[in-house]
């Protein structure tokens, strides 16, 4: 889509003597499609959740465009940012997963997918994929693992991470409730699946209240050793 990022060059029309500056509408290959993704790692589970709204500027293109993509039986990736790059990136990851499976006769582990994604993103260092990725899944020991990325491939393993348009609203709340930051005299209880699910729902309901790009519905993927289960919860549609 053409984006009107005017660069303000002025070109006086030769021969007419007009001095009015003309805004040059430069083509931008990127646009921002909104959306929020959240991943939480537990002792033996991992939750990856995203809203399903696809927007651009003041419009909503779709209310049913989830941002979680299943990669293997143990790994889910959430991608927000520019939807075109999200689609291409997930296609490339899926192709690379198949190639790995054919040459190595085994499925890629969550950590390996994260390391591979880092190099895929960095290979486009000078024309980046405008995608904020969060990978959630189980590691080789069966524990929950969350890996968060920046658009050019810097990554880190976390216990929980929020990405996308409402990330700055969700992350502090998670730091407090799951990381027990800025709390005194509180017992650090390990997170159960039920509590984590409730937290995810509450947190997205709050995000939908205050972020225009988040809303419509919430899709949750729960990764356990028994596979991946999905849930959909309705959010505000305004």
């Amino acid at each position, binding site marked *: 889509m053409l*984006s009107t*990022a005017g660069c303000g*060059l002025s070109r006086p029309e030769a021969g007419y003597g007009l001095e009015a500056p003309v805004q*040059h*509408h*430069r*083509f*931008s*290959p*990127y*646009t*921002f499609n909104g959306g929020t993704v959240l991943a939480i790692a537990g002792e033996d589970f991992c939750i990856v959740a995203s809203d399903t709204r696809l927007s651009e500027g003041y419009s909503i293109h779709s209310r049913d465009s989830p941002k979680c993509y299943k990669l293997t039986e143990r790994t889910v990736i959430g991608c927000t*940012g*520019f939807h075109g790059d999200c689609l291409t990136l997930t*296609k*490339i990851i899926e*192709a*690379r997963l198949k190639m790995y499976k054919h040459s190595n006769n085994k499925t890629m582990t969550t950590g390996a997918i994260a390391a591979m994604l*880092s*190099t*895929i*993103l*960095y*290979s486009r*260092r*000078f*024309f*980046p994929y*405008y995608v904020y990725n969060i990978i959630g899944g189980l590691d080789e020991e069966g524990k929950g693992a969350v890996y*968060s990325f*920046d*658009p*050019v*491939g*810097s*990554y*880190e393993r*976390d216990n929980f991470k929020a990405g996308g348009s409402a*990330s*700055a609203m969700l992350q502090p709340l998670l730091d407090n409730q799951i990381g027990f930051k800025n709390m005194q005299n509180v017992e650090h209880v390990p997170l159960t699946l039920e509590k984590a699910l409730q937290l995810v729902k509450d947190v997205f309901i709050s995000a939908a209240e205050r972020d225009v790009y988040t809303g419509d519905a919430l899709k949750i993927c729960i990764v356990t050793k028994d596979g991946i289960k999905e849930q959909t919860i309705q959010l505000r549609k305004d």
Partner: protein
Amino acid sequence: MALASVLRAELAEFSPNFPKNFPKNFPKNFPEDFPDDSEGIPEILRDPPGPPRVLAAPPWGFEAEPEGPGLQILHGTTTLAFKTPHGVTVAVDSRATAGSYIASQSVRKVLPIGGRMLGTMAGGAADCAFWQRLVARQCRVQELRNKEPVSVAAASKLLANLVYQYKGLGLSLGTMLCGWDKRGPGLYYVDSEGQRVAGAAFAVGSGSSYAYGVLDRGLAAAARSEEAACELARRAIAQAAHRDAYSGGCVRVMHVGPEGWREVSHHDIAELQDKYLEA
């Protein structure tokens, strides 16, 4: 078919001949023979007149910083390292910022290069992680070929020459390579501008000025023992975190000695500040 060619392009960068055969049709006398194929391109997509500002620009123009709305890459912040008779003491903070948002307070800014060398991260997080990992791989290959651990001078030169090829394209890398080789402790500062300089003490990043203030004052005393050196390093990072908004999180102190590198301590800056501000 299109996806396969994209994938081949992705994988080409990791072939052993990279970057010798990248890009294939790169003009030899830049910028005189830079191809001007703008006749068929609509006005709105053409380059502005004049020589291209940057190497290898795509037809729609090129920005050193990615220009997507809100596209922000992570940057890292205060790191320091200094030599002592016992080895090299390295200390880093752990904050990563994307614009004014603190993306993470737990980034590992020290990247091991083999068992005897460490590289620090300041500037673009992805740039530092990627190029140091590549250098680590090349160092390992060199060790296998020469049956001898690679020297800090050689590793830093490899890194400097790698990033120099991308000078001007917007890489942001300010790293210190710290190690112990047959010449004793080695410390080099390498950055994406092409600088490579050996020294006895460096502080790199947005909080480096504050760190230098504390570091320079205590360097002579720090040579006494490893304990004193680590305490000085910790104090310097804590001071930088206190004054620089883009530094914080926790302090990680590492030490590289003749037997290799090890992590000495890991403290949350909030706790350290209680301790230091009282004194």
